[in-house]
């Protein structure tokens, strides 16, 4: 029972560990008990019940699997859409063009209904976010063991295929959106206007420190909530798939099929929410209060 519990635990944690490449500092005890020699070593992080090498590597390490899958999916998205864009005809569209156009139309409708200013960046940004996040989330529907198994056969110890279950990926996007919020706030209202917005409301100039505190919390909450909402939903969904995968093989589909169907809704919804909130935040950044 104890060993079974142990293997379940290691199975789960194995599936939730990124393939991290970084530098282990000198003197670190590795997962297999060896000690890192002079000058440290650049390597992939291995983890065991007692050692967390990825954490030891600190900030200067990179999750190779997250980067690989997110960039691959981003390129897939751009390649697909670019192919359609090159052959785009104003006549009768083919199946692929129809599909792409309906997505573009959908995104454009959303942008137009939320964002009333003129800005050539917003719609392509929204489209990129929607499709890219959707594709990253979609990796969740690939059975949890397939790609990690193939990877382990190729000698790759860890492989987390859903980039949006990595807080780095979602937070990276959210921070990029945050940078755009700051940029457009200052561009549209000037530094003074932006500062005034942060400090002079909602309670007037006599409560300036309070206002500032309130507004800055509100501002910072935007990227954090954006990142954590997507990450949390995807991480939890992935976790449920992993737990279902622990069941005997003949019982798995009873749960995995309904959950997968339900998850189709979630991955689309989360991509949509990320897109809409980005548009809303940027629309707010454009507006004078």
């Amino acid at each position, binding site marked *: 029972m104890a060993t079974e519990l142990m293997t379940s635990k290691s199975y789960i944690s194995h599936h939730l560990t990124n393939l991290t490449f970084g530098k282990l500092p000198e003197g670190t005890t590795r997962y297999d008990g060896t000690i890192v020699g002079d000058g440290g070593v650049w390597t992939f992080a291995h983890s065991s019940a007692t050692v967390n090498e*990825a954490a030891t590597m600190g*900030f200067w390490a990179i999750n190779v699997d*997250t980067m690989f899958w997110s960039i691959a999916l981003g390129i897939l998205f751009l390649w697909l859409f670019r192919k359609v864009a090159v052959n785009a005809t104003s006549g009768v569209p083919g199946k692929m063009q129809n599909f792409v156009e309906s997505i573009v139309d959908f995104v454009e409708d959303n942008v137009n209904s939320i964002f009333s200013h003129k800005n050539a960046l917003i719609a392509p940004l929204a489209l990129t976010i929607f499709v890219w996040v959707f594709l990253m989330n979609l990796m969740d529907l690939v059975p949890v063991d397939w790609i990690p198994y193939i990877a382990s056969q190729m000698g790759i110890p860890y492989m987390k295929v859903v980039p949006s279950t990595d807080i780095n990926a979602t937070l990276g996007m959210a921070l990029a959106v945050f940078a755009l919020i700051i940029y457009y706030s200052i561009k549209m209202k000037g530094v003074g206007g932006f500062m005034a917005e942060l400090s002079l409301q909602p309670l007037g100039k006599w409560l300036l420190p309070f206002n500032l505190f309130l507004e800055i919390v509100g501002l910072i909450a935007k990227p954090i909530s954006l990142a954590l909402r997507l990450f949390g939903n995807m991480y939890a969904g992935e976790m449920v798939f992993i737990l279902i995968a622990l069941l005997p093989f003949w019982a798995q589909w009873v749960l995995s099929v309904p959950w997968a169907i339900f998850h189709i809704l979630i991955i689309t919804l989360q991509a949509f929410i990320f897109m809409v909130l980005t548009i809303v935040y940027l629309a707010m950044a454009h507006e004078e209060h």
Partner: protein
Amino acid sequence: MNINLTIIGQIIAFFFFVVFCMKYVWPPITAALEERKKKIAEGLDAADRAERDLLAAKEQAEADMQDSKEQSAAIIEQANKRASQIVDEAKEAATAEAERIKLAAQADIEQEVNRAKETLRTQVAVLAIAGAEKILEASVDEAAHAKLVDKLAAEL
């Protein structure tokens, strides 16, 4: 679950994807959509115009039809009139011709009758003389009795 360099990598990737999308994906697709929208609007417009044209053409055709009907009615009437005129003329001509033929025939008949009478008269004279000759068994002076015979012939 560790925050690391991936976050920066993700921002850079995101930046490039957005720029690429903005430069090479979004404009051609929306341009195609816009152009199609315009085409459809033009098509609908053309259809409207065609419908209006069709209506006008129908009206025109109806008017033309009415015109030609009137015209043909006039022509038929004229033709009828002309036909009856021709018939009348023919009738008149026929009547005249008949009259003329009748007159000619009458003249012929009269002439024939006269000739017959003349012939008869001469032959009667001869017959009378022959008869008288036979009756009298004597020679009769033709010259002496010519006056008598002529008188007899004239009486016939």
